[in-house]
């Protein structure tokens, strides 16, 4: 003990600093200095210049896409070479992959912005207040696109989606409760089938309603079993059912078991526990799930082709006669040969887009993290107590929830990066 404390002054390690040479300093792997920024920007600029020279000066010029792609690739190459020279191969790989990952995430913005921008620009050409008031009565191809409107389609959409919600919501809620609150051995097959059903092509749902309810009764002449809004609502209900079930399922799973146990321990029945403890706790998440289901159903076109069929005039009765809806209005108009019809279709597309984005924003608003404003230390609070030993409580099948559902849910805590 005492010897070791004495020896250091004479040990070679301690003597090292006195030797001439560069001072070895500990380097942090993620250190990103000003010089690194210069290297990054410098590689980008030189890659752009190099490709501009090749594409637009030395050759006859190719497409913008080719220019951007080649610039990007040569930027990566330059950046890799310079970083490898300065800091070594390991750091260079890390930096280059960082650039690749970040740019991949940025690329996702591009189509979204282009799509929204394009529909906004095209749709505003024909969108006038009368679009919400008139139907297509008396519209001929020679009339301008601002004439007429889509009130019949809007009414149809509201009725069909409303009815679809009426059919699917109770069933979806009960199925989600079944998946979470019961201890039946049928839970697993039902869960698998719900998962499978959410991948069911929506056209097949329409085809199913057509095959079971419309086609066999075609000769009977009963308007209830013909093309109408009611049939469309049934087809939409089939497409909405798995979406809502799975999202509600995920939300219910996040209700802490302690709350359920407390309720049961106080002598409440399971039904009472679900209605008085589980549902109120998961209320915001469930509302979000429903709003998302509506947003999904509003934009569905395929199941309506065989059920609502489309109609140019107002038909407010969903139980008789073919009916228009907003997606059908868009689909039918943009396939017409005349420009004014296409522009009208774009106006409908804009209304549809705004509606979907509004529903999306509403879902986010409902599902926002309220605890933060009150200054509570934890996120939603519900995710904290999930029991890792319980297979139905672990977030295993969260991944299969419909895209958007999870992110909407404020109770799911995002893991922190180390």
């Amino acid at each position: 003990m005492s010897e070791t404390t004495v020896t250091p002054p004479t040990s070679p390690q301690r003597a090292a600093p006195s030797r001439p040479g560069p001072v070895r300093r500990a380097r942090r792997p993620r250190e990103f200095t000003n010089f690194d920024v210069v290297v990054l920007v410098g590689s980008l600029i030189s890659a752009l210049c190099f490709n501009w020279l090749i594409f637009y000066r030395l050759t006859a010029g190719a497409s913008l896409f080719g220019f951007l792609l080649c610039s990007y690739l040569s930027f990566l190459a330059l950046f890799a070479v310079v970083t490898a020279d300065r800091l070594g191969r390991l750091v260079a790989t890390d930096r280059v992959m960082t650039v690749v990952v970040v740019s991949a995430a940025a690329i996702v913005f591009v189509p979204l912005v282009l799509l929204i921008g394009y529909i906004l620009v095209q749709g505003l050409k024909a969108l006038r207040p009368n679009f919400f008031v008139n139907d297509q009565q008396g519209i001929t191809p020679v009339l301008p696109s601002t004439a007429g409107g889509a009130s019949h389609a809007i009414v149809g959409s509201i009725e069909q989606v409303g009815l679809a919600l009426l059919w699917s919501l109770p069933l979806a809620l009960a199925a989600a409760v079944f998946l979470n609150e019961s201890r039946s051995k049928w839970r697993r097959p039902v869960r698998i089938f719900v998962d499978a059903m959410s991948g069911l092509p929506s056209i097949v749902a329409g085809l199913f309603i057509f095959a079971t309810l419309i086609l066999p009764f075609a000769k009977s002449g009963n308007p209830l079993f013909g093309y109408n809004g009611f049939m469309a609502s049934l087809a939409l209900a089939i497409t909405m059912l798995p979406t809502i079930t799975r999202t509600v399922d995920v939300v219910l799973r996040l209700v802490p078991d302690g709350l359920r146990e407390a309720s049961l321990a106080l002598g409440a029945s399971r039904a009472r526990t679900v209605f008085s403890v589980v549902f109120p706790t998961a209320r915001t998440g469930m509302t979000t799930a429903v709003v998302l289901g509506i947003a999904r159903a509003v934009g569905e076109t395929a199941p309506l082709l065989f059920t609502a069929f489309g109609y140019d005039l107002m038909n407010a009765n969903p139980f008789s006669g073919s009916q228009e809806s907003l997606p059908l209005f868009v689909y039918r108009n943009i396939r017409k040969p005349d420009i004014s019809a296409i522009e009208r279709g774009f106006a409908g597309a804009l209304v549809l887009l705004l509606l979907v984005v509004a529903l999306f924003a509403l879902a986010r608003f409902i599902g926002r993290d309220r605890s933060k404003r009150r200054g509570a230390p934890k996120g939603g609070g519900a995710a904290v107590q999930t029991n890792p030993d319980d297979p139905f409580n672990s977030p295993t099948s969260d991944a299969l929830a419909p895209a958007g559902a999870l992110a909407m849910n404020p109770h799911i805590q995002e893991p922190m990066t180390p």
Partner: protein
Amino acid sequence: MSETAVDDAPAPIPASPKVGPTPRIVTEVPSAVDRRFNAVTMGAGISVLVLLLLVGGFLLIQSSDAISQTGILRFLTRTEWRTDVQPPAIGVFGLLTGTVLVALVAVFFAVPLSVFCALAITEYSTARRRKWLIGVVDLLAAVPSLLFGLWGFLFLSDKMVPISRWLSDNLGFIPFFHTEQNASLTGSIFIAGVVVALMVLPIITSVTREVFSQTPAGEKEAALALGGTRWGMIRAVVLPYGRGGIIGGSMLGLGRALGETIAVALLLPQVPQRIGDSIHILQNGGATVSGFIANRAGADSFTVSGLMAAGLVLFIITLATNMVASVVVSKSRSGAGVDL
């Protein structure tokens, strides 16, 4: 205390059998309300199951007319779809190849982008930026298929033509990229695949993101503590851990892409083509099952029966893909996620 102790020592006790401590059987006797409640929820769960079986069953019944007239093998292997000749010659093969090609192109583009996007969300973002990214991906998922189709049909299609032209000019020697002379390059399987890629991107991203975010923090920290860079850590820990999720998510995306209807109905001419010596994914042409069905709404009863059969084939394929995907995802994580 244990039951064996009671069993092993029967001799002294028999004098009065009621004295010994017998373990009380713990049961839950549900009340009348609960019984009804259980029955209702169970009924709902089972009815979802039954509904899916009904969908398959009715499609099978309704399609029997077309299948029995053409023969199941002929139906599956014939390319053309003609109801104007006698007997009608309909087959689903041309539609299936188109469907699979569109889905493969979509997955080819969507998977790398989604994996990088998921990595950006879980590993490379601050909390604030992560929220933004997730929002953008979710918004992409919320945009209806119809609007993607509209945008692809009237905007992207023209913008993609130079890319298709370049590919066919420079890589035309690969049979895949070959195009015929003076062929139109709009409305191709390639363009449809790119548009569908945008639609399946959110689903693949959300699955892979979930899997990546469940990587044990201890393993990640261990990799970093050993001096690994961030990418080194991702390659050594996150990607191997999430492999099952990536595969399952891609298959889930593939299932979505196979069933994609309206966008593809707008983008492709929907005429089943003979795919013989070479596959022309870059030039106008191609049909998919769902798009073909969508374009035939309101047809005569025999055609409808044929469409049902095509729908049934699509239904079975997507169902199988989705089932395999969910099994892969659930298997991969339950096996790997417990050791830390």
